[in-house]
């Protein structure tokens, strides 16, 4: 009898622990592997620009939040399965993603860049400092042509399921040999190991890595924005239509979008986004 009681109480306590999250807690997912956007400290705590910003947005919304960790490759499917309510993981707002989820207004701008190891033949590519693929024009065309020539026959590494992978596979820079990795950490490792001739990611992801690891990783070519690179980084949310716009779940999702948008407005006005961006990126990447 005693054993039965113990077993029952263990199950009961497990159940209680798992249900301490009230239905009204907003669960926000981040990757925890894309510094300085989001990463983990040595003791395993989630840190980074988006982790702090998420906490501030919750303060502005006056809501309880829980930040959860999720691998990048399952980020969007798990949101759609209601494992959490929002994504803040350096996720750029793109048309492709908008087909399955929705986004709040953008809170920060991200430019992408190619990186190589110092001494690479790709160094000294002569292109403008930055190109915006949405604007186009002759400068952009000329820059893409230069990059296409430089990358021909080269292996370019990038994280799976990112805007960077989409760009490399779009044909804008010819047919490069694209190698994809689960995390940016692994991209950095193989770039320094020499398995990749170049890598493509957010420019800050490389500068952050170069600074922390002391490796000779340098940016080359222009910074990229627009087009496949999307229009800034926003909070990824479920489309209210996914569970029916008139259903309780759909209404909650629609309300979340409104709440996040107004919280971002408030944070911007208070200068909070600029402050956090400057703290984590070293420059004001807010938008």
């Amino acid at each position, binding site marked *: 009898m005693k054993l039965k009681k113990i077993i029952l109480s263990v199950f009961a306590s497990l159940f209680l622990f798992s249900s301490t999250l009230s239905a009204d807690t907003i669960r926000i997912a981040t990757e925890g592997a894309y510094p300085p956007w989001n990463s983990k400290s040595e003791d395993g705590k989630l840190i980074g620009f988006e982790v702090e910003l998420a906490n501030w947005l919750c303060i502005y919304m006056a809501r309880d939040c829980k930040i959860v960790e999720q691998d990048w*490759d*399952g980020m*969007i*499917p798990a949101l*759609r399965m209601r494992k959490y309510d929002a994504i803040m993981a350096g996720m750029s707002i793109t048309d*492709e993603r908008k087909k*399955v989820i929705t986004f709040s207004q953008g809170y920060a701008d991200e430019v992408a860049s190619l990186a190589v190891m110092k001494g690479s033949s790709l160094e000294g590519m002569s292109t403008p400092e930055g190109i915006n693929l949405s604007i186009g024009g002759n400068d952009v065309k000329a820059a893409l042509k230069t990059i296409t020539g430089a990358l021909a026959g080269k292996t370019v*590494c990038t994280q*799976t*399921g990112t805007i960077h*992978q*989409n760009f490399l596979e779009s044909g804008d820079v010819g047919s490069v040999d694209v*190698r*994809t*990795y*689960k995390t940016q950490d*692994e991209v950095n*490792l*193989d770039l*320094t*190991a*020499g*398995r990749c001739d170049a890598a493509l990611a957010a420019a800050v992801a490389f500068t952050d890595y170069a600074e922390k690891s002391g490796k000779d990783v340098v940016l080359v070519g222009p910074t990229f924005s627009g087009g496949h690179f999307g229009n800034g980084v926003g909070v990824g949310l479920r489309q209210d239509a996914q569970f029916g716009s008139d259903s309780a779940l759909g209404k909650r999702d629609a309300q979340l979008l409104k709440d996040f948008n107004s919280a971002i407005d408030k944070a911007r006005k208070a200068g909070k986004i600029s402050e956090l961006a400057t703290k984590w990126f070293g420059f004001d990447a807010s938008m």
Partner: protein
Amino acid sequence: MDLELIMTSFPKLLSATVVTLKLLSASLFFGLFLGLFFAILRLNKNRLVSGFAYGYSYLFRGTPLLVQIFIIYFGLGQIEYLRTTFLWVILKEPYWCAIIAFSLNTGAYTSEILRSAFETIKPGIIEAGRSLGLNKIFIFTKIQIPIAIKQSLPAYGNEIILMLKGTSLASTVTLMDITGVAKFIISTTFRPVEVFIIAGSIYLFITFLVHNLIKYLEKKYRYQ
């Protein structure tokens, strides 16, 4: 269920099956030689020799395959000295890193399977050979090895199936095997259920073939 997605991703996954089968067959090929080699070492009377073989099998059976492939691919890649040697020609390629990791892993299991098979051979059989005046090498290659292979077929069939599933870890080092391509399709369609169901079915089908092949061989080589 999105039927159209299933129809479009099936051919892509099917062509990725070639990569999976290549990885599997190469690993099993090298693993079988490693396994036989280390099984023979294990049976050696010299403690040092058998201890070395035991250490190998203990190390590779006692650590996760994922950890082994990460150490060989990402770990060895970080050693700067290694990158200046001829070994880097092989280790630079994710394909060879995966095959090295898989071969060493399946080799460890195979050595255990073969060792126990050798140990089940009754001394009387070997003595019978000796009394006929056959030499040691002849007894080993023509009597012990065939019996051991027969004995180990069921366990080895199991190992092939485990290894088949193990090859899915190749996708963690950028290889586009069935799992790698499945993940790639999901990264653009955000539909994991359909894609993983097809990927799983392909693995299941290969398992079905392996299982039946082993069953056939078992039947064929059964004692009359």
